[in-house]
């Protein structure tokens, strides 16, 4: 039995039925990881502790009821603080950072019994769509090593695609879970803003950031999502509401679906392959007898410029905490306190991060605040209203995840071209809406993805429509 290819669901039942042990699972993954180091997936590993935890898990299988993921190995994006384990956020700034506490997402998955194998590489501070902005170098796409795995959760996606774990955590500020999932042939879900606690998740743009899951299939995604969701008093923006049973809901017959289609919008891009894959997805819905309705999203095309005001503005405020004093990189040979700030930040941040802080600073500076930041927030309201209106008639909206398949590493040098990677994923973040990418179609032997966007807190409906869509 190839343990590394098992799904999360198969691992849970296999451990329960004692077909294999947690130690066998962990050791097998460590061996697979060791044979594929060139993919550059991990910033740091936690193998020793993982084996110790697996041994403990094997001797305590009777607590399976309370710990549904008992003994299951997994991988965290290196943006989640892990107590005593290096948490770099893909940056030189945090290359020496060993957090004194763990993120709520990490704690909850630990409480469920899962075992972290290591921390996955990512774009620096989650700013990037290719994994190339990481201080540790780009991750390679396991499906074709010349290609990018996407970003910013590229390491998390590559880890699952390369069979280093059955699922991983990621974060999504403008598409950072869904685009890598699409590039690596996986399922990736960004839940509703506030469904998953942001406590201990290193901040990029606080009104957009949301943690989520990458996995090989929808059922596994639903299972893992269950254990990271729910209200957390440590995050004032987390939503106080009951978490549904995602795993049951994804296979339930209780959901009625009307899928919103944006055919005119997709065709307006004039990209033949994009339109072709979208119309193939529409045909699939028709074949499955799922109701559809054409909708208008008139302000959607403004998402990109709005995002590139709001996200950098929030990032410039969030990243002001890196002062070289309390934690993180500290420059040597400085003349005075001001010089310490300038040099620590100048030497500790990579170019993309610097660029975004500078754009944010510009948009928030005196004389430009109204023209950029305030204006972007107004248009964010228009985009959000487009969704509110659409959801009066439909239960989800289908869009492509990306405009194309994974691109070659190093092939996109124009920053705006790179930013356009997230053109179909950003709108859900601006609206705080849940969205899922599932594999659908392929081009040049690389997978493509299709995306379903749901109404607020409707992850169950999204998982359900995705599951139906794949049952062809």
């Amino acid at each position, binding site marked *: 039995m190839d343990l590394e290819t098992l799904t999360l669901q198969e691992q849970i039942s296999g451990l329960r039925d004692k077909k294999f042990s947690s130690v066998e699972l962990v050791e097998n993954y460590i061996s697979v990881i060791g044979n594929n180091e060139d993919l550059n997936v991990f910033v740091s590993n936690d193998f020793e502790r993982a084996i110790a935890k697996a041994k403990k898990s094997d001797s305590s299988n009777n607590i399976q009821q309370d710990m549904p993921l008992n003994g299951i190995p997994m991988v965290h994006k290196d943006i989640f603080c892990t107590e005593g384990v290096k948490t770099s956020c893909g940056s030189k700034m945090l290359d020496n950072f060993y957090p004194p506490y763990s993120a709520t997402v990490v704690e909850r998955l630990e409480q469920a019994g899962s075992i972290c194998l290591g921390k996955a590489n990512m774009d620096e501070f989650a700013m990037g769509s290719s994994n190339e902005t990481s201080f540790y170098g780009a991750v390679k796409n396991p499906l074709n090593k010349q290609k990018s795995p996407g970003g910013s959760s590229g390491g998390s996606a590559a880890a699952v695609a390369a069979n280093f774990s059955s699922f991983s955590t990621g974060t999504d500020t403008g598409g950072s879970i869904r685009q890598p999932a699409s590039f690596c042939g996986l399922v990736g879900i960004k839940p509703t803003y506030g469904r998953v606690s942001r406590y201990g998740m290193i901040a990029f743009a606080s009104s957009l950031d949301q943690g989520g899951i990458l996995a090989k299939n929808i059922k596994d995604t639903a299972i893992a999502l269950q254990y990271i969701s729910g209200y957390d008093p440590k995050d004032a923006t987390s939503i106080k509401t009951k978490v549904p049973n995602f795993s049951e809901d994804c296979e339930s017959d209780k959901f009625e679906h009307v899928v919103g289609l944006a055919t005119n919008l997709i065709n307006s891009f004039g990209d033949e392959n994009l339109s072709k894959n979208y119309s193939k997805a529409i045909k699939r819905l028709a074949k499955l007898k799922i109701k559809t309705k054409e909708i208008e999203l008139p302000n959607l095309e403004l998402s990109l410029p709005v995002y590139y005001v709001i996200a950098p503005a929030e990032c410039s405020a969030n990243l002001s905490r890196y002062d070289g004093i309390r934690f993180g990189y500290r420059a040597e040979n400085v003349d005075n306190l001001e010089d310490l700030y300038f040099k620590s*930040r100048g030497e500790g941040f990579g170019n993309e991060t610097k*660029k975004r802080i500078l754009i944010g600073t*510009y948009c928030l500076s005196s004389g430009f605040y109204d023209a950029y930041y305030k204006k972007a927030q107004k248009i964010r309201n228009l985009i959000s209203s487009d969704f509110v209106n659409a959801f009066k008639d439909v239960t989800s909206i289908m869009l492509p995840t990306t405009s194309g398949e994974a691109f070659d590493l190093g092939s996109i040098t124009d*920053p705006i071209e790179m930013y356009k990677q997230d053109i179909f994923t950003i709108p859900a973040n601006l609206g705080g809406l849940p969205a899922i990418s599932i594999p659908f179609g392929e081009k040049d032997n690389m997978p493509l993805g299709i995306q379903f966007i749901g109404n607020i807190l409707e992850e169950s409906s999204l998982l359900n429509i995705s599951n139906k869509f794949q049952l062809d």
Partner: protein
Amino acid sequence: MTIDDKTLENLSKLSKIKIDENLRNKLREDLNLTINMIDEINKIDCDQIEELSHPIKDNFNLREDKVFKEIDRESLQKTSNKTEDGFYLVPKVIE
């Protein structure tokens, strides 16, 4: 709007980031491309629209005002490589 050398210098000061000479031209070029792209929003008339700063309306959950887990000073300060007697060390600021 255009970002020239003077504006870049001001942004560097405001954000307290030292910008290397060899990066300056490329950075200015990229910033201008981005500003040019985001300037699209200024073509839209939305004076009467309210701003949206938080995607989920009316979701403010204040927790009870009590300490739930205290991270002690010693553990917190382990993340800094320059501390003394519970204080962070910085270059001299008072002459």
